[in-house]
């Protein structure tokens, strides 16, 4: 194997099928051990279950997914849902949970590349992750991820691997960037390829987004002590299920390693897109970064 060998495929292949043998009959939810993940508004985001090394998940109204870590995921769309919609939902919503279930850790974050590595911006949906990443992109930083940053911890470093993504900007943010008043998708990494630009990279910093409710809050990026950074990052950790204690412990260990080795910052900023330049200034100033 040469020193320039590509990163092994990370993303399980998706098979979208009309019917999944063994899926329909077992995917009824309600066991105490089923994990029900909810979004910020309280709606069910995903149902997850693991049994005997086999994982099953449902994104309500979209599709059911089944996988066991062999590099393939089978999806059965809900009636009336097009296969392409399932593929989109897989990449954007299901894949982070799939990767966590098969042993990776994934932060709900967007990210850009600076000279010393990747900077992840984690936060709740609609909190400004993609907007900040795209704003930095316009300041010459390459976007690394949109909505999911997968990482691994080794004895030497905390590194992140590239995932396919599109940058998704909400209408208000798209307007701010002169892209029109509609939800906008901009192409990022598209496939399983691993060219030179998309090799694994060290995580240089993590910023936890904290958008204030009042416009007078100045943009600031301040270091978070580990004891605050740890729960803050766990808040934004994708997790398939907490049922398996050994897996949970491993996840907690990895996040502890992350806060021990990587600087974590709280990025506070006003709830106004007009303040975006000052937010980006604060990031650049704090991280002393160049693209």
């Amino acid at each position, binding site marked *: 194997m040469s020193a320039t060998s590509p990163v092994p495929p990370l993303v399980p292949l998706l098979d979208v099928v009309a019917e999944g043998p063994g899926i329909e009959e077992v995917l009824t939810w309600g066991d105490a051990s089923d994990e029900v993940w909810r979004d910020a508004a309280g709606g069910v985001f995903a149902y997850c279950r693991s049994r005997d090394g086999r994982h099953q998940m449902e994104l309500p109204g979209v599709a059911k997914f089944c996988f066991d870590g062999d590099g393939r995921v089978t999806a059965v769309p809900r009636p009336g849902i097009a296969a392409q919609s399932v593929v989109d939902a897989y990449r954007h919503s299901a894949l982070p949970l799939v990767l966590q279930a098969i042993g990776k850790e994934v932060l709900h974050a967007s990210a850009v590349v600076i000279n010393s590595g990747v900077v992840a911006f984690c936060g709740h949906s609609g909190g400004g992750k993609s907007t900040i990443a795209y704003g930095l992109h316009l300041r010459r930083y390459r976007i690394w991820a949109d909505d999911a940053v997968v990482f691994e911890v080794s004895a030497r470093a905390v590194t992140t691997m590239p995932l396919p993504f599109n940058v998704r900007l909400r209408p208000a943010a798209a307007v701010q960037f002169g892209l029109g008043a509609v939800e906008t998708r901009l192409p990022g990494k598209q496939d399983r390829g691993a060219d030179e630009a998309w090799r694994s990279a060290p995580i240089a910093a993590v910023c936890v987004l904290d958008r204030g409710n009042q416009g007078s809050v100045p943009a600031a990026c301040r270091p978070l002590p580990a004891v605050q950074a740890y729960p803050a990052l766990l808040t934004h950790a994708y997790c398939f299920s907490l049922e398996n204690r050994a897996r949970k*412990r491993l996840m907690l260990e990895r996040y502890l390693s992350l*806060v*021990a080795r990587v600087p974590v910052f709280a990025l506070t900023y006003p709830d106004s897109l007009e303040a975006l330049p000052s937010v980006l200034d604060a990031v650049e100033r704090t991280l002393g970064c160049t693209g």
Partner: protein
Amino acid sequence: MPARYRASPDALATRVGDEIVLVHTRTDQIFALNRTGARVWELLCGELDHAEIERRLAEEYDVSRDELGAQVSELITSLAEGDLIGVLGGGP
């Protein structure tokens, strides 16, 4: 025989600078030990008893034995209440 301690199997610990961050994996509680507390944790994990921990700390820090004894006792009690340490053997 004086009590010796060990880290709970449910405890995760990592050093961050001078501090040690402890996490209990069942209760999900998080604790931060300052520099001195972190040193006590290391000595506890070395299966030293209370008196030996005090003696070592007295060598390393410019603090009275009485004050050290009280602080070590308080910390051990807190760690035990948090189920972060268990007693290996001996008395209280």
